[in-house]
Structures are given as C-alpha cells and as structure tokens.
C-alpha cells in the first residue's frame, strides 16, 4: 500500500469520533473501504458493530483483531511531517489500520493462508466486541490483537481480573451513639482489609506474578453527625497466570461469607461483575517465532517480549479460543488514554511491514512442517 493511502486510512479513522458503544459510523466506514478499494471479501458488520473481513484462503487461519473504539474525549486530528495526532492515534486505531493495510497488501497472494480482520467494539468498555466475536464461533490457528506495545515489543502475557463490588446497609443513627449499631462504612472497610490481606499473602517475585487488590471507589455517608445508611465499594483485583480468576472469585465469596457468619448484621452483599482469566502465550509457539523473526527482518532489532500487569482482550481470545495470541502494535503504550496521543508515521508504516512479514513467516513455517511430515 502506498504510504499516502495508509496515512489517509488512519487519518480518516481518527476523524470519526468513536468512544465505546458509538462505533456504528467507523464500522460502516471500514466495511465500505474493505469492500471497495482494499480488496477484502466476506465483509460483514455483525452484532455489536464488529466488522469482519477476509483475504487469502486455506490454512493457517490468522485473526488480526483491533478495536475501533477509544476512550472518551475529543482530541483534534493533526498531521505533521513526522506524526499523526488525535484520539485513538496510539490506542489503538494505528494498529487496526496497519493490520488492514497489511492484509490488503497480501490480498492477491494465494500462499499466505486465510487472514481475518476483526475490528471489534467496546474494548475500552467491557469487551463486548471481542466477547461477541468469540460467541459467533470464529475459528483460527493464531490471533494477534492490536494494541500499542511499541514497534519492537511483543506482549505475550496479561494478568487476569476479578472486579467486585461490596454493598452494606445499616441503620442511620446519631453519630454520638456508635455502639448502638454496626457502621456500614466500617463494615465494608473490614471486609476490604481481609481482601487486601488475601492479596498480600499472594505476592510473587514481581508484580506480574503477584495478586493485587485495589480499592477503586467507595461511597457512603450523608452527614458529619449521622452514621452512614449505606456504603458501596468497588475493588479491582489482578490475577497472575499461575492462578485462576474463577477460583479467586470463589475464595473472595468465601471470605465475605465467613465475615457474614461472624457478624449477622449488617448484611454485606458481594457482586462479582468481572472474571477474566489470565493468559500467556507459550514462547515455543509458531506465532512467537513468526513475529520475532518479522521484527528482526523488518527492524533489524531484537524484540522484547513483554508481560503486562493489566488485562486485555487478548485474554478472552487466548483463553476461549485456546490458540496462541500475542498483542502487538505501533505506538508508545504510555500515551494511551492521555490527551497527547500521537503515532510516529515511520513507526506506523513499519508496523504494516512487520504484520506482513509475520503472516508470511506463519505460512512458510506451516509449509515447512508439512514438508517435514512428508
């Protein structure tokens, strides 16, 4: 793809403001482009406004998936000599545009297997797009999720997540009589202390191998001289790959049940609103080899394999499809969600070449395996 065409594709995508669950316009734009000059087939806008499209045929089947949505907040689109600025330029429309450009460049090739572009919605929300994509029954041998890892970095693992909320109700009394009844805020805080201890007892060698628990919101109380009628707290836990998020959620449930057994009143209600399993790709997989080689070939640099303490849509793809998945894309991840997002044009264009080289390597590796098997 010509440099100007690739730059214009990304700029067009940035000019469509698309915070989570408002992806209809960008989905239609991408579907029109892929049906038209970019040379894809089976272009569909599916449930949750996911856009899927294919090039090539046969195996291996590789999903290149990126998200169309951004965090909220308009940031003017500006193109300078070296960079493209705008909301989503880094996280992560540049990765999605690069994937589309790479697949489009390979559209006429009969020897690169099947490449499925999956532009998904709501990654910055609750992952509705990726969950819907998986529920649609999509099948593949490999997947790459497009997020800004940095052009020479490959993210191979993410921690899992357990999101929970604690709610406690208690009588509202005069603050001068605290012994008359339990205090809703204090009761929630006592449970939080036990959850914090649970995490502290599971500290590993480094943050990636440790359980963490963060108290992210707490609401309660209405007056300085009245005991609180209600308290609600939200807690965000991150789970390392050697543990199970589902088991952690069960153990937190048991902690709350034990607290409740010890004190009948007030009632603490636990609501577990997210259980995402951790995921790490096997470093011996063909996908790791293909993308490491691609970076060596295109960039002449040794890539860094990253493990992240966050949680991404790669967790869902890897855990549920049970295939090797990596996260890779241009851009400085520390610009994500900031008001100064930008992508260097050279890095964006280089990432297109890396995706192409990776796809060629995957296909070549499969041919070598088939030849070895006779």
């Amino acid at each position, binding site marked *: 793809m010509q440099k100007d065409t690739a730059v214009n594709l990304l700029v067009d995508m940035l000019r469509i403001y698309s915070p989570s669950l408002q992806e209809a316009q960008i989905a239609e734009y991408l579907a029109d482009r892929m049906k038209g000059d970019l040379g894809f087939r089976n272009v569909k806008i599916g449930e949750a406004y996911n856009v899927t499209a294919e090039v090539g045929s046969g195996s291996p089947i590789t999903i290149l998936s990126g998200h169309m949505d951004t965090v909220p907040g308009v940031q003017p689109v500006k193109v300078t000599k070296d960079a493209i600025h705008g909301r989503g330029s880094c996280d992560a429309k540049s990765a999605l545009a690069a994937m589309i450009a790479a697949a489009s460049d390979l559209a006429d090739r009969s020897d690169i297997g099947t490449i499925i572009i999956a532009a998904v919605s709501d990654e910055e929300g609750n992952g509705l797009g990726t969950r819907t994509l998986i529920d649609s029954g999509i099948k593949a041998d490999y997947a790459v999720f497009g*997020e800004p890892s940095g052009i020479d*970095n490959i*993210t191979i693992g*993410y921690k899992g997540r357990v999101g929970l909320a604690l709610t406690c109700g208690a009588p509202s009394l005069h603050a001068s009589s605290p012994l008359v009844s339990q205090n809703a805020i204090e009761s929630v805080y006592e449970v939080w202390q036990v959850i914090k201890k649970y995490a502290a007892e599971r500290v590993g060698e*480094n*943050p*990636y191998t440790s359980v963490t628990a963060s108290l992210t919101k707490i609401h309660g109380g209405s007056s300085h001289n009245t005991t609180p009628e209600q308290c609600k707290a939200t807690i965000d836990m991150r789970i390392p790959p050697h543990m199970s998020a589902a088991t952690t959620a069960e153990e937190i449930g048991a902690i709350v049940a034990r607290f409740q057994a010890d004190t009948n009143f007030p009632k603490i209600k636990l609501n577990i609103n997210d259980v995402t399993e951790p995921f790490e790709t096997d*470093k*011996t997989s063909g996908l*790791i*080899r293909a993308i*490491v*080689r691609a970076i*060596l*070939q295109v960039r002449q640099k*040794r*890539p*860094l*394999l*990253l*493990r*992240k*303490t*966050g*949680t*991404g849509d790669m967790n869902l793809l890897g855990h549920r499809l049970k295939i090797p998945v990596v*996260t890779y894309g241009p851009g400085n*991840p*520390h610009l*994500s969600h900031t008001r100064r997002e930008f992508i260097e044009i050279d890095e964006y264009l280089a990432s297109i070449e890396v995706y192409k080289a990776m796809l060629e390597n995957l296909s070549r590796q499969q041919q*070598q395996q088939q030849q070895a098997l006779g």
Partner: protein
Amino acid sequence: MKCPECEGDIDVPADALEGEIVTCPDCGVSFEVHKKRDGATELRPAQIEGEDWGE
C-alpha cells in the same frame, strides 16, 4: 541443540536468524541464537523479557 541450562533438547530451526529467540521446552528458559564466524550456531542467554502496565 542441548539447553545450556538443563541439557534438554532445543529444536533450533536450520534457517534461524541471528537474534532469533528459542525456548527450552523442558525448563522454559529462552536463548538467543548466535551464528559464529565458522557458521556454527550457539545459544546465548537472552535478555528478552520485560514487564509493563497498561490495557
């Protein structure tokens, strides 16, 4: 080739590039492929893993 860490067998592809990463299936340690001047291949300890936050 033999894993320098555990003596396990590591399959180093014949077309491996200088700098390519191979991982021992037994002990999980990763190595960098280094091509010597005489064309022979050796495995060197790889500084290839990092940690980061995000997403």
